[in-house]
């Protein structure tokens, strides 16, 4: 009906389902999306440039501000990159705690994702259920490092503090609770007819196309590409724990949903193994008093909840700050796929797809 004049709809940056300040300029034919432009940059703080003027330790707390729903993961990613540059051996105990924190963080991030994704599609109850469990994780983090959102929970070479006494018991207790709660989410969504109709066949992307678009993390695995940094290039203690990498088959929104729901379970499994197997020992390796890596460049990637989070750092070997600091944020790479995914779908699917890519704008814009 609008075919003589397409309707240009400006979705965001102030919109309830753009998860922050994403702006999508949609060209609509009726309710059908003909084309979409993704506009980013509303949350740009110049973290990469700032980092080039901070010393190596100070950068840790900037990494908190990138993916603010999974700050500990960014901390680990950065610290491991610097450790790789300095060739520091991290003690086993620290690596185990890092694994636990990363996986707890993955559960927390996925909780936020399942809540908001379901909310975008109109199922409001899952949101509050998921936040209830996320709260438990935030409590665990608060006990570990004193903060609930931006943790600054890592140090180069290890951990700032040992885990508090009894903390591991609480983590195991959380794992027990989480197993039951996951069942609740699945009850509300996985076999819900409306949920199936809203997610199946929406935003289908094949494996090769997903690789071509540079998707990573759950969206890539949802298309059936077995790529998980934790398995392919193990870091922390991932080579010492058992877990499976869930894969999708079709590559639609429902597959991405299933992949993340399975990752929940795998994360709980990893946390349980790692917590039960924390070795005794020091928490910090041998770190020089003045951190000044030799000249050269390093790239190190870890598997953040959103996908492959990489740090590329160049050191000139002279100053106490990086010469060049560059982050490869998974949300940014996944967001590139949005335009391809939403073409031909309806306005209502746009929010489902934004949710299904699980982007955090703090990380996209940095």
């Amino acid at each position, binding site marked *: *009906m*609008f*075919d*003589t*004049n397409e309707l240009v709809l400006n979705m965001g940056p102030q919109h309830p389902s753009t998860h922050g300040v994403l702006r999508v300029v949609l060209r609509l034919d009726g309710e059908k999306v003909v084309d979409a432009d993704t506009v980013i940059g509303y949350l740009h703080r110049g973290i990469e440039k700032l980092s080039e003027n901070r010393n190596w330790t100070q950068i840790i707390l900037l990494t908190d501000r990138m993916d603010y729903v999974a700050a500990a993961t960014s901390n680990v990613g950065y610290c491991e990159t610097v450790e790789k540059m300095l060739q520091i051996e991290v003690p086993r105990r620290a690596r185990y705690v890092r694994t636990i924190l990363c996986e707890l963080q993955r559960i927390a991030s996925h909780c936020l994702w399942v809540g908001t994704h379901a909310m975008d599609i109109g199922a409001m109850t899952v949101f509050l259920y998921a936040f209830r469990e996320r709260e438990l994780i935030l409590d665990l983090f608060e006990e570990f490092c004193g903060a609930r959102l931006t943790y600054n929970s890592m140090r180069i070479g290890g951990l700032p503090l040992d885990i508090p006494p009894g903390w591991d018991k609480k983590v195991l207790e959380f794992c027990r609770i989480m197993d039951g709660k996951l069942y609740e989410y699945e009850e509300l969504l996985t076999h819900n007819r409306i949920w199936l109709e809203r997610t199946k066949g929406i935003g289908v992307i094949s494996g090769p196309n997903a690789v071509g678009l540079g998707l990573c993390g759950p969206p890539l695995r949802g298309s059936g590409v077995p790529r998980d940094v934790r398995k392919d290039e193990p870091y922390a203690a991932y080579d010492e724990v058992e877990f499976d990498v869930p894969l999708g088959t079709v590559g639609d929104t429902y597959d991405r949903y299933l992949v993340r729901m399975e990752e929940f379970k795998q994360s709980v499994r990893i946390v349980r193994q790692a917590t039960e197997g924390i070795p005794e020992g020091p928490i910090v390796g041998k770190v020089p008093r003045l951190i000044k890596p030799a000249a050269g460049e390093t790239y190190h990637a870890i598997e953040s909840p959103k996908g492959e989070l990489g740090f590329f750092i160049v050191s000139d070997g002279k100053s106490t700050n990086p010469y060049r600091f560059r982050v490869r944020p998974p949300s940014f790479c996944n967001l590139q796929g949005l335009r391809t995914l939403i073409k031909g779908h309806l306005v209502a699917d746009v929010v489902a797809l934004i949710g299904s890519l699980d982007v955090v704008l703090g990380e996209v814009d940095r």
Partner: protein
Amino acid sequence: MGEAIAFYTLAAFILGFAVLVVSTKDTVHSVLFLVLDFLFVAALYVLLSAPFLAVIQILVYAGGIVVLYLFVVMLVNLKRPPEAHQDPRRRSKLGFGLSVAVLLELVAVGLIGVNETGRPVTAAASVMPVSGNTEQVGWLLYTSYLIPFEIASMLLLVAMIGAIVLAKREL
């Protein structure tokens, strides 16, 4: 007396809104006045003890047909206001003159005719087997007027298909 007050009030509203329908610049306002007009016509039907027809008037006209009008107005109004320029070819003056003349004639007829009291014609009133307005209408529709009723339904079906064919972008 009460009937007279009701009639004149309703008549005033009906005519007033009708004038607004044809004279308003904004098409959407025009559609709105049309709805109001139909609602008052429905009230007139109640006054004429035809409640079934009144409800049908609201249901079909106000709730159905005019919504379609509004829908179309909204679709075509998106770009620019219609009647942006004057057209010399349209004889609006002639139309006005003609209608004013007929209206005057009507008023004249009315002034002469109103004093004649209407003679209620009761001869034609056949004996209905059921009572109540709705039942009577239904009875007639399904007995004496069954074939016209079916033809009307066919007409609606044809109209439906026609509308789909016209409005569909590609068949």
